[in-house]
């Protein structure tokens, strides 16, 4: 019986995103800019979300926003879209909670 030649396992190939993340880390850049990760600024009266992918649900009590790898859910009262553009989303109202849901 022919003995199978042992092969050294090849290291797992790094994905492009991982490469970019590492490069950003090396260059001391914000990874969220390079990797299109949403950035969120939050206060009890307003939420500013950058790099979103669109609104999924919009009611007075809950707003769900799509972003890369996650869905951002904002809960509260009297919520409304203060402004919306291609890159940013501004939500006003009484913010009770902000949740990231990994898809």
């Amino acid at each position: 019986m022919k003995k199978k030649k042992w092969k050294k396992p090849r290291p797992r190939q790094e994905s492009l995103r991982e490469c970019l993340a590492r490069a950003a880390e090396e260059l001391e850049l914000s990874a969220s800019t390079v990797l299109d990760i949403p950035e969120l600024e939050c206060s009890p009266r307003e939420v500013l979300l950058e790099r979103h992918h669109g609104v999924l649900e919009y009611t007075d009590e809950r707003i769900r926003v799509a972003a890369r790898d996650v869905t951002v859910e904002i809960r509260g009262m009297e919520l409304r879209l203060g402004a919306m553009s291609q890159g940013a989303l501004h939500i006003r109202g009484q913010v009770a909670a902000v949740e990231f849901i990994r898809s």
Partner: protein
Amino acid sequence: MLLGLINYVRGWVRVEIRGAAIERFLNLCAQNDIAFWDVRRLAPDVVQATVHIQGFRQLRHFTRRMMCSVHIVKKRGVPFYTHRLLPRVALWGGALVCAGALLAATRFLWVVDVTGCDHTLQAEALRLAEEAGLRPGVGKNKVDSEEVRSYIMTNSDNFSFVAVNINGSQAQILAYGRKETPEMVPVDEPCDVVADKDGIIESIQIKAGLGMKQAGDTVVQGDILVTGTMVSALEEVYEVHAMADVTLRTWHTLEQVMPTTVQTKVPTGREKVRRFLVIGSRRIQLSFVEKEPFPCYDIIMEEKQLKLTENTPLPVKLVTERYVEYTPKDYVVTQETAEKVMEQRLEELLELTLPEAQVESRQFQCQYEVPFARSSLQVECREQAGVLQEVSGISRKTTEEGND
């Protein structure tokens, strides 16, 4: 605030979006670079949002795709007003004419102002400036400020400094009057020190020359205090420039008379106001008041130069004339009031007539009689005395006689 102003200038439309997939519609708009703000959900299938005019024009392309309907609720902004006013040719024409008139008005000088000197010199400076071509209504390019300055300085000896500044439609002449300097006797010329007022010499310090008076002597105006003619031990006569510091004790009496009954004006509270515009030499009445509105009245005039900016006056003046009615009433001045008023007036007169005198003592007297009250102020002062005067013939003659 600033963002609101920018949005107002750009123009915005408040729209009501109705449909089943409003979120998708909003996402599609955002992806296509249609920014919107103040989104409010009115019902599960109704949303109100505000967009710019450009965004609103693009919205209709997506309404069909998303099966939504869009209705205008409100529209505001400069483009809408402009669109509404666009057919009004007369309005635009008027605005254009106004802008042209303003532009033309800024090419001329409308105000010529003189500062830095008293009214007499101001009038003289204005007259000379007018002769040099600087007057209200003249074109700015026709005025050479340096030339005007030179003309004023050349044609008058009353100014020590003149500057002509042109700011916008306003020309400002800064003129300083020349102060009269006392006639000085050159240091190398022989002279005497002569008393210029009456009094008793309190102190005398001779720096050059021969003292003719000493402390405690009484002098009258014109007396030689220090002579510049000197005689040496060898009886040689020579002349020097006499110098001395002389302090005199002087006495002055100032008098004042005032009537004990004066006529006062008691305002009745009624007044009428007449306003008119003055354009060049023309007057345009804005409100009408009869020629003699009241039996007794005062006219208070206020003149206001209309200005576009601080340095851009318009050739228009707004004049306000207030006719204030009063009733004449005789008022008897009491002795106390008369004394107070006259004492104050005499103090002012003293300050005016003897500005450099050091007052040692004063005595005020008032004699109250109908119909006039008389008062006098006697002051004892300490004053610097002595003026230089060329060596007088009398002194020289006396010295020569003495030599003989």
